[in-house]
């Protein structure tokens, strides 16, 4: 029997029967049935699988699950709760509130195919946590030059993403 590992994802503790070297993405997708992080390149070159581990973006496709033990993993699905906790929203308000980044992605109609967008929103949350009012140049720089690789979108939604990040920044400062 594979021993169980205890993993905290989106505020919930899970015991998962996986080997410690298993990439985090397979645990999130196959064991926890989360569809936000998606398999792209499988080698930390595109960002489609990005999640937050203790508030920092990591690429779940190359990160062994053992790295996340004892840490807090947040996926796309956990962003509303992250925002609710930051803003200390009461449960009814929390239940009807998306993270401002998600709301901006809807308001700006960002996704085309949408496959890369979970990772894009994770990158936006990380950027806005460090720079609450980024310029266009800073947004471009963050999505392109933050290691380990640029966040890639094949549909070409970069222009929409820039507009959505600016909208989210305004909403988060309000």
């Amino acid at each position, binding site marked *: 029997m594979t021993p169980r590992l205890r993993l905290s994802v989106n505020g919930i503790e899970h015991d998962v029967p996986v080997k410690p070297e298993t990439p985090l993405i397979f645990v999130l997708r196959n064991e926890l049935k989360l569809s936000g992080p998606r398999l792209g390149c499988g080698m930390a070159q595109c960002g489609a699988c990005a999640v937050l581990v203790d508030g920092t973006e990591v690429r779940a496709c190359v990160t062994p699950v053992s790295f996340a033990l004892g840490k807090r993993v947040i996926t796309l699905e956990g962003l509303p709760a992250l925002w609710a906790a930051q803003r200390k929203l009461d449960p009814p308000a929390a239940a009807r509130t998306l993270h401002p980044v998600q709301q901006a992605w809807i308001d700006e109609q960002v996704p085309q195919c949408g496959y890369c967008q979970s990772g894009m929103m994770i990158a936006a949350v990380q950027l806005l946590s460090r720079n609450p009012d980024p310029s266009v140049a800073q947004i471009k720089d963050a999505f*392109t030059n933050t290691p380990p690789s640029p966040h890639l979108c*094949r*549909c070409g*939604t970069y222009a929409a993403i820039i507009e959505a990040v600016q909208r989210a920044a305004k909403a988060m400062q309000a």
Partner: protein
Amino acid sequence: MDATQSKEITTVTRRDVLTGGGALFVSLYCPSALATQPANGASLDPGSLGSWLEIRSDNTVLVRTGRTETGTGMSGYYPQVVAEELRVRPETVSLLMGDTDKTPDGGYSAGFLYGMTNVRKVAAYTYQALLKLAANRLGVAPSELTVLDGVVSGGGHRISYGSLVEGQHLDLRIPIGGQPANPAEGKWADVTSLDGLTVLGNPPMKPMSEFTVIGNSHPIPGIPDKVTGNTLWTCDVRLPGMLHARVVRPPTFGSTVITVGPLDKNSFPTAALVRKGNLIAVVSPNEWEAVVAAQSVAATTRWTEWSGLPRSENLSKALRERDWGPPLQSKGRSEDVVASLKEAAKTVSASYEQPYVRHAPIGPFNAIASVHVDGTTTVWTHSAHSQGMRARLAGILGVSIENVVVRWLDHAGQFGRTTLGGDGAEADAVILSQLTGRPVRVQWTLQEDLAWSSVSPAWVSNAEAALDASGHITAVRTAFYSPHPYDVRPVGALLAGIHGKAPSPTASIDTVWAYDRIPARFEAAYAMPNLGAQTPTAGLRGNIMRTPGQRQQNFVLESLIDEAAALAGADPIEFRIRHTSQDRLIKVLTATAQAAGWQSRPAPQAGARKQPTQGLRGRGVCAIIRQNAYWAGIAEVEVIPATGTIEVIRFSIGVDCGKVINPRQLKRCMQSGVIMGLSEALKEEVTFDTSKVTSTDWSRYRILTMAEVPEIRIVQLSRNDKGFGGGSEAANAVVPGAVAAAFFDATGVRARRIPLTPAYVTELLRQPGKEPLRGLSEAPQAAPLYCAL
């Protein structure tokens, strides 16, 4: 169709009287021989519930189409079109897309204009029927009735559509023609039909001038789920007893198996090896075990060696040296062009090169198949042509098409790769499911996808123009040379030895001629098989990709026009306008020039030098006409000679695509089309050595990043008098020509191939006065890969 028939068509028949609920079902009625053929699945049985549209007693509307969302917003446009004709609110219309057992029409997803015309007519027929029902119920003549938001009013009475159908089960039958997709190996793309079924007749439709829903920026329905993590993607399908598969691909296009490496059952206790011919896979209930076990098997599997490709850096030379024989297709009168060239005051002659590029979806392809012993099969896929894929899989499995159901789900954008109902992981999945007797989920890796999927073929082209003494073009001659563009046989079937018949070489002239004031023109298109066609995997299988053929040919034509404008000492926009009488093109060129702040002058700019100490600015224009849409693109660039980089500072793009359906989504599609076009202009190239593709990750197959996105200015010219046009696709096709023209304006040097990589630009600027004659390719250096964490 005459008026009597139209009248019958809009007369509903009452099937049952129900105690609760109720609906008006708009089903299929086949007036032609098609009606006597066996129905291809439940969806085509005229008496079944499978239908195009339902008006439900809760005042909602369900529309079904086999066409799917590919990332351009079609899932939003269909409800807008239906809502417009039915006079309901678009948010009350829901859409069921792509499942072959639940949708009636078939057809490829990019054929939106075709599919939209179908559902618009269906809605128009239904509207007439609802008016008649309401007239009977309210005792008011149909001509006295008005409808707003699904509520019919007249003679002081009101009734909703929902109330009209409540407690009843009503059928409306409409006439259809056309042909569903069927297997047809050896025919074009191996299926009988691309367009699917067509709704016949001419029901009265709302005039465009009265539109209230079309023309508004209705939100795209799937977006909230994609943003919150609630979308079920193809890669999310999990079936009871399902096995995960990873495929062990050959090392070269021509390799065949000598021995299959052993699977160590101690290390991989629940994994198993599966093989059919050269298709080798490892399956396991645990995905990570499948991944690692497949790597282990791959390391010890022995294959034969093969080589036979020109290296990509020699490709252009190889294509030029080939004996192409006579053209497969030609247009125009060669002798007129020859005469004009003889009499010309000036001529311009140039040769252009474009590399192999590929669709390169961010998510590598995947598919899930469940093949039962009796041959009944269900496949979950993201193919953009479900009925075509169904036909192809029936052919591969050797079962009747009625046995196969294809279910569609979202996946990564693929830009035409599955339009012909082929390529992808579905064949791997059905073969492996058939062999294991279990549902199988096949997930390709990025390396697999970038090495083994179909590609958009390379081109070499020669072009000449004759100018008279006044600087007017009198003739244009073009010759296009390109490998096969329509071989979408899935690699899994080819490796398994199942799906082997090669399509005949094909070439076509895809240009729509913008310049009708040029009196003589001759075009020829030459064909050859795939590169590596002789191998068991058929080599580099050519396929269509966004603005197929026309993108490549338009780059050549527009570059030639730009060279002629410079020779004539004319402003490139004024020069184009001088050579066309097409009012829509002139207007979009003018409006886009205005948005870009274009100042009239010839290119190159006065200060153009090749070896300056600082960046050089230039601007260039490119136009295209495609699918009833007129496009103009203007690039403003800065060339940095020291590094060979081209920074695109601003790109202005304008379109007249007839009536704009959804301005905000069109803006998004135009922005993203510019970004894809810049990627093609500056970065993209499939590289290969003598035996295999080498651009197999994102450091070797480079696409545009966010840092390289310019300011993008958008011009939309919507109009009510020209119907609907293709508002998204060709946005990429005006970019490479505009960027190459801007490069010339900045430097005075012609760039006659794409991509304009730093290495190519450096080489161009290093050789003053001489265009380098060289191969298509310079293998981009692999970027350093950062170590994660």
